[in-house]
């Protein structure tokens, strides 16, 4: 009989607009290591060049497939189908990113596999592999399982920590090039790619240990700089409410909440955000919540660990100043 650790976990790794492995790769492989033997799949041009990196992050084998870069999603679905046929996995894991989740879902539908979406953890119990989900903005913790067969699981980005560097087997690994039979399914064509304006060296919102978010209370895009200043003083990522995004203070990719990013950091600082239920849905599982708002009736105070009824434009500069002198003392 094979032990669980012998079982293959097929992991689809996303690539960023620069062609490198996406930041989600480390967490995906770490989740797979806990379930069995991770086999990575990398799709697209020059995928072989990324094999070593995948191995360093924990992949025991690396499968690659070229694939028409200009066709949306379909080539990756075809590659995933070929890879699964090749290694007969006990589970398939992909990122719950825009690209990753669609590939995973189409593969699940195509092959009749069960689909577990937006998992925050994967585990084994007596019955097999199960996925944990934070439903309704973390109000509930739900466990799902497949009725039978290998589940296809999309993992929320930033939910599984990467192993400390140097843990992976790493080193030399010969990528295995897959033989993919194209499905000929019609695909949308990609006409151009515009990489997002790189937000300097700030941590990534989804996986950051600290997040500083600003709302409508910041008043303007210029004044929103205060949020960035505090974020930099704390080494935090920058988030925002939908009202701040709608007002054009920051790009939509910073939106935290129901229809934005869900974060679960050690520290969440909310500046000039009232605390609408749709905002709470994306941040209420943070370990420590700090709120600064002029309105003492703002609902966000109800879940704050430390709240300041006050003006962000006086409190925050003083806070930054105090943090600086703390750092230098």
């Amino acid at each position, binding site marked *: 009989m094979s032990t669980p650790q012998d079982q293959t976990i097929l992991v689809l790794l996303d690539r*960023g607009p620069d062609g490198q492995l*996406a930041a989600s790769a480390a967490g995906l492989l770490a989740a797979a290591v806990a379930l069995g033997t991770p086999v990575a799949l990398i799709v697209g041009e020059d995928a072989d060049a990324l094999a070593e990196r995948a191995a360093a992050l924990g992949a025991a084998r690396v499968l690659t497939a070229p694939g028409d870069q200009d066709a*949306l999603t379909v080539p990756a*679905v075809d590659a995933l189908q070929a890879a699964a046929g090749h290694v007969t996995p006990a589970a398939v894991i992909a990122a*719950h990113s*825009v690209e*990753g989740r*669609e590939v*995973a*879902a189409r593969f699940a*539908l195509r092959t009749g596999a*069960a*689909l577990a*979406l*937006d998992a925050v953890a994967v585990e084994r119990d007596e*019955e097999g592999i*199960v996925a944990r989900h934070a*439903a*309704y903005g*973390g*109000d*509930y*913790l*739900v466990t*799902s399982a*497949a*009725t*039978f067969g290998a589940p296809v699981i999309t993992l929320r980005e930033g939910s599984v920590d990467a192993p400390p560097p140097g843990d992976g087997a790493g080193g030399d690994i010969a990528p295995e090039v897959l033989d993919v039979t194209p499905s000929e399914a*019609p*695909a*949308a064509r*990609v*006409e151009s*790619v*515009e*990489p*997002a304006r790189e937000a300097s060296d700030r941590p990534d919102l989804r996986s950051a240990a600290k997040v500083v978010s600003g709302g409508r209370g910041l008043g303007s895009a210029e004044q929103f700089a205060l949020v960035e200043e505090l974020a930099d003083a704390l080494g935090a990522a920058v988030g925002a409410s*939908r009202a701040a995004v709608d007002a054009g203070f920051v790009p*939509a990719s910073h939106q935290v909440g129901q*229809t934005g990013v869900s974060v679960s950091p050690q*520290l969440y600082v909310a500046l000039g955000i009232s605390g609408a*239920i*749709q905002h709470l849905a994306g941040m209420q*599982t943070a370990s*420590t*919540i*700090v709120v*600064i708002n002029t309105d*003492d009736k703002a609902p966000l105070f109800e*879940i704050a*660990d*430390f*709240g*300041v*009824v006050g003006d962000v434009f*006086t*409190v*925050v500069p003083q*806070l930054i100043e105090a*943090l600086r002198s703390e750092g230098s003392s």
Partner: protein
Amino acid sequence: MRILVLAKPVPDTYGQRTLSLETGLADRDADVAVLDEISERALEVALAHAGDHDGTEVVVLAMAPQSLQASLRKALAMGAHDAVQVVDDALVGADAVLTAEVLAAAAQRTGFDLIVAGNASTDGSGGVVPAMIAERLGIACATSLSSASIADGEVRGERASDGATLTVCAALPAVISITEALPDPRMPNFKGIMAAKKKEIETLRLGDLGVEALPDDVARSIMVEASERPPREAGTIITDTGDAGTQLARFLVANRLA
């Protein structure tokens, strides 16, 4: 041209949303249901196109219990020409794959040139149903569009992808999904509300669609456990009298969060 809009009724996020701890399923009886805001935006995309292009027919499609028909009435009141609802007791607790299979079959039966959906619902928020419908129907798919222009034979838009914006183009028939960057939906007017009351909503059952809820060879995703997160404990709230920033800094340092 016929545009099919996927309109999902969801528990109102402004109210309390409950999951049954017994079944792990949304408690549709306990919550107030509304037409999902993102579905309304999808409908707005279709109605705006229809307003500028004579001969465009807008049909809304939902898979939802009979009791949630009010959401489809609202879509009709906003200006949709027709509505189709798939209702079947076997669909209680349907997972995302089954939902896509059902909607794909209903779409095929109704007929369409373009399907418009939201990028992710506000309850399940899986964000995968539109792509799976395209997979099942064997048609092109362009999802997460933050802009969309519909033309003869094709649809084009900006896809808000991971770390990049892609300009994509799909030949019709196709499925698109849109993000909340698209315009706010219109409000139903009095005339629309009156007209919607008189309209017949077509009801389909699984048998009409040839879809089985639990075939032997297809695995489903089921909830095996659900628990409620314990409420947060109340914290310290201070009113700024000149030194709140300093006090907050001390709090962060003391908790090793600075």
